[in-house]
């Protein structure tokens, strides 16, 4: 009657254990080259955003007129190496891109965070509680969604003036509706689910059901949308700043850099090309990551991504 180390049934149960661990996700990222590239790019970008002071090879401001408009890979007057060339004031383009990442990425992130919070809170409660509250919220959402958002953004920034804070404000006001509509639909579906009825039967309060029970179950599509929205907001920031209604000049933003480089488009192609490429790669990576999250969290598709043997 010595106690056996392994009961046969446990072994079978362990082999049937389909819970997904962090290692599985990591494996899924490394298993797909395209996704790996997207994640790697975003990690580098976040590193640049946080540690621009330490990672940029040169200063982003301050002029050096002897090294004006040098092409990529050139060596400047004092032996300085310019990976992506210099602009019309002799500033290193690569360093300015790194500092620009800080502005562009953080505007996109913060705008998405605020609109996500506002939209998810209003949307989930509207879907769960229904009634007049839902009608009012959804009427507002439909109305605001049918307005041309770029135009409204331009006008608000014209009235309030550009700048970092106002951009985030405008993005939040004009983008919370997409989160609201999505989460309202999700809450509407969840309202009749067994786990919600069970929670209600146990006497859970409305807010508790909405935020402790429904929210964790509908996180996946919200995260996907959040990722896509960051990409959209970074693109909008670039457009608005390019037109002169976004970030103000001393701050380097990718859109502003393209606007500045436009004057030298015939002679110095790199000034326009690289900031645009940076935005493009950022949006592309965010889209790829969103697709990946969608696939990995979709019960029908996930086996293909998480299993180690099946070729995709």
């Amino acid at each position, binding site marked *: 009657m010595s106690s056996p180390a392994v009961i046969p049934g446990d072994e079978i149960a362990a082999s049937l254990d389909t819970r997904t661990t962090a290692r599985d996700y990591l494996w899924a990222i490394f298993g797909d080259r395209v996704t790996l590239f997207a994640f790697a790019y975003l990690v580098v970008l976040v590193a640049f955003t946080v540690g621009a002071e330490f990672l940029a090879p040169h200063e982003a401001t301050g002029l050096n007129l002897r090294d004006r408009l040098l092409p990529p890979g050139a060596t400047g007057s004092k032996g300085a190496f310019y990976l992506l060339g210099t602009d019309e004031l002799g500033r290193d383009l690569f360093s300015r891109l790194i500092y620009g990442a800080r502005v562009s990425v953080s505007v996109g992130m913060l705008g998405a965070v605020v609109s996500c919070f506002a939209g998810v809170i209003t949307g989930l409660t509207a879907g769960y509680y229904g009634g007049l509250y839902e009608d009012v919220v959804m*009427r507002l959402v*439909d*109305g605001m969604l*049918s*307005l*041309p*958002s*770029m*135009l409204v953004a*331009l*006008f*608000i920034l*014209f*009235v309030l003036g550009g700048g970092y804070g106002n951009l985030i404000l405008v993005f939040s006001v004009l983008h919370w509706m997409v989160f609201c509509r999505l989460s309202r639909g999700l809450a509407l579906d969840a309202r009749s689910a067994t786990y919600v009825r069970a929670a209600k039967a146990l006497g859970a309060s409305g807010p508790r059901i909405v935020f402790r029970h429904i929210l964790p179950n509908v996180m996946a599509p919200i995260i996907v949308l959040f990722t896509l929205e960051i*990409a959209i907001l970074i*693109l909008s920031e*670039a*457009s608005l700043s*390019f*037109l*002169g*209604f976004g970030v103000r000049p001393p701050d380097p933003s990718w*859109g502003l850099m*393209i606007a500045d480089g*436009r004057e030298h*488009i*015939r002679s110095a*192609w790199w000034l*326009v*090309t690289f*900031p*645009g490429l940076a*935005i*493009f790669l950022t*949006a*592309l990576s*965010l*889209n*790829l990551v969103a697709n990946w999250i969608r696939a990995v969290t979709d019960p029908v598709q996930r086996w293909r991504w998480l299993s180690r043997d099946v070729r995709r």
Partner: protein
Amino acid sequence: MAYYLRRAGNSLLLLLLTVSFVFIAGRMIGDPALNMLGPGASEVALEKLRRAAGLNDPIWLQYIRYVGNLLTGDFGVSYRFGYSVLPSEDLDEIGQPVIDIVIERLPATFLLAAVAMGVAVPLGVLMGVVAAAHPRSVADRIVTIIALAGVSVVQFWLGLMLIVFFAVQLGWLPTGGYGGFHHVILPALTLAARPIGRIAQITRSAMLDEMSKPYVVTARAKGVREWQIVFVHALKNAAVPIITMIGDELSALLTGAILVEKIFAWPGIGLLIIDSLTRSDLPLIQASIAVVATLVVVVNLMVDFSYRLVNPRIKLGTRA
């Protein structure tokens, strides 16, 4: 019918709210009289203008007058365009009616939008259909990549790159301006990139859904040719999401034109909006926003109404 009326009524209400918002916000940026005459104007001239334009009246009276004028198509006169004589007592002399300026710019924008969508819709649908007909093939991968690139690219940057390549390096096409057919190619291509990607994506996923349905299996069992199944049977059933996306992209295009017109110096309503914003020409801003918002709202309405034409099973106005 009641549904159509209710939807149209909602849209009208929305437009009224938009116009009101623009009116109120426009008053927040400062004294309209000072704005109109410029910082060097004398106090006498300012006061004269204020009295003539009714700017001394209470704000609610001005608002009612403003909305009333809008209903008769009177959006006021521009501060800057056609501005030749300094204001006398007669306000009509100081500028051109803004609505005329806006309407004059519409054909250029419509042309641009029509060419861009004329390229984007067939191409996007075709790409999506081909990808869905051969899932996981090389063609599918290529379409997916092109679609992702089209969605991720910054429009105005793509326009600048096209200018550098086709206009500056190769010299095949003009860098901008308005004129013959060769002027429209680059701006239209720039505008088409995003809709091509979005339409291809939505077509692919809608078609993939349809292709796994029983009626496709039945058609195959009957021996219907594969291209017929794809283009006639499945595409027809996948139409609703595709049309929604086309409508979305069309209204996005009307505002996306702001940047593209700016880059290519295309004299459409987008360029007019930028010019009026940089010159703080408030009546012109108000009129162009009202016109563009109306266009967008009309496009959205048309999309809603077309659902029923495409799919008679959809009952409008009932909650799913």
